[in-house]
């Protein structure tokens, strides 16, 4: 078994078998993802602390979020995760045509997400909601001066921009890797036993999706009931 596997160039010479190579690759990817969990949990923690210190300010600032665009973006990202997982499956069953179609679909949906996000940033700039650079929103500045809420609403938008920009940066990196793999998949090298690179970018893509699953309710939805 182990000897016959080595006739296949998809198996690295330092592995004994495809099973071992697959487990090693997946384990390494999860090690990387656990550092990513730590990166994002630091930011979520800062969000929770500010939210606990200035609850009314968060509700007031949250009022300016476009829930419709946020919901559409959540759906787009979920659909991109579905196309990603179907790309992995296509590689596993050896269908190169479907693999490349699903990779391209994933990249397209990722691009739609980033486009909608960019439009939201444009709206925030237009409404004067960019802390430090362009903080001219009359309503928030007036309410803050009147003491309707404690703290500055700039804190909320600072957290919002840091978290979503770092998330978007991850999306951009993922997009680049998905397109690179789409290009390299021309010769069918990722089919059957060679599907590990597709599986690994899939893990990364879904992880970025999970981060958004938490960002969306925290940044868009909480405070809407008031």
């Amino acid at each position: 078994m182990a000897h016959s596997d080595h006739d296949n160039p998809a198996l690295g010479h330092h592995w004994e078998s495809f099973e071992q190579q697959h487990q090693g690759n997946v384990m390494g990817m999860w090690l990387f993802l656990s550092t990513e969990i730590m990166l994002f949990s630091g930011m979520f923690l800062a969000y929770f602390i500010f939210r606990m210190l200035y609850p009314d300010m968060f509700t007031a600032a949250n009022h300016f979020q476009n829930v419709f665009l946020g919901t559409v973006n959540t759906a787009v990202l979920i659909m991109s995760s579905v196309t990603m997982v179907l790309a992995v499956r296509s590689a596993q069953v050896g269908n190169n045509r479907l693999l490349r179609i699903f990779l391209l679909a994933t990249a397209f949906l990722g691009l739609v997400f980033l486009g909608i996000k960019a439009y939201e940033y444009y709206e925030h700039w237009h409404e004067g909601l960019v802390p430090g650079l362009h903080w001219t929103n009359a309503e928030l500045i007036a309410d803050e001066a009147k003491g309707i809420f404690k703290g500055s609403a700039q804190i909320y938008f600072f957290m919002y921009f840091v978290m979503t920009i770092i998330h978007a940066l991850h999306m951009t990196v993922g997009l680049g890797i998905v397109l690179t793999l789409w290009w390299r998949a021309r010769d069918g090298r990722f089919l059957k036993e060679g599907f590990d690179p597709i599986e690994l970018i899939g893990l990364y893509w879904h992880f970025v999706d999970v981060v958004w699953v938490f960002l969306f309710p925290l940044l868009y939805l909480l405070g809407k009931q008031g």
Partner: protein
Amino acid sequence: MAHIVPVRTYLMVGLALILLTAITVAVAYVDLGPLNEVVALAVAAIKATLIVLIFMNARYAKGPTKLFIFMGLIMMAIFMVFTMDDYMTRQWTLFTQP
């Protein structure tokens, strides 16, 4: 070697995730008091669990991979719990009253 999951499973999970998103948006506009935050985070946790277990195939993870998955979560719990321990108890005046 690799577990090949039926397409139907992936589509059903995708559908469930979309439905959960619709639920969490709808519930956000109903005033449940402090429960709004609980529901929002609970739905997000269910969605995340579905993605990790089904899409990321964590349910097939072997020993060392499982270790790394839980290590990330445990580190996150340590950050959150130990920091909040401090922040949430700063107002306690039990031992400083005259």
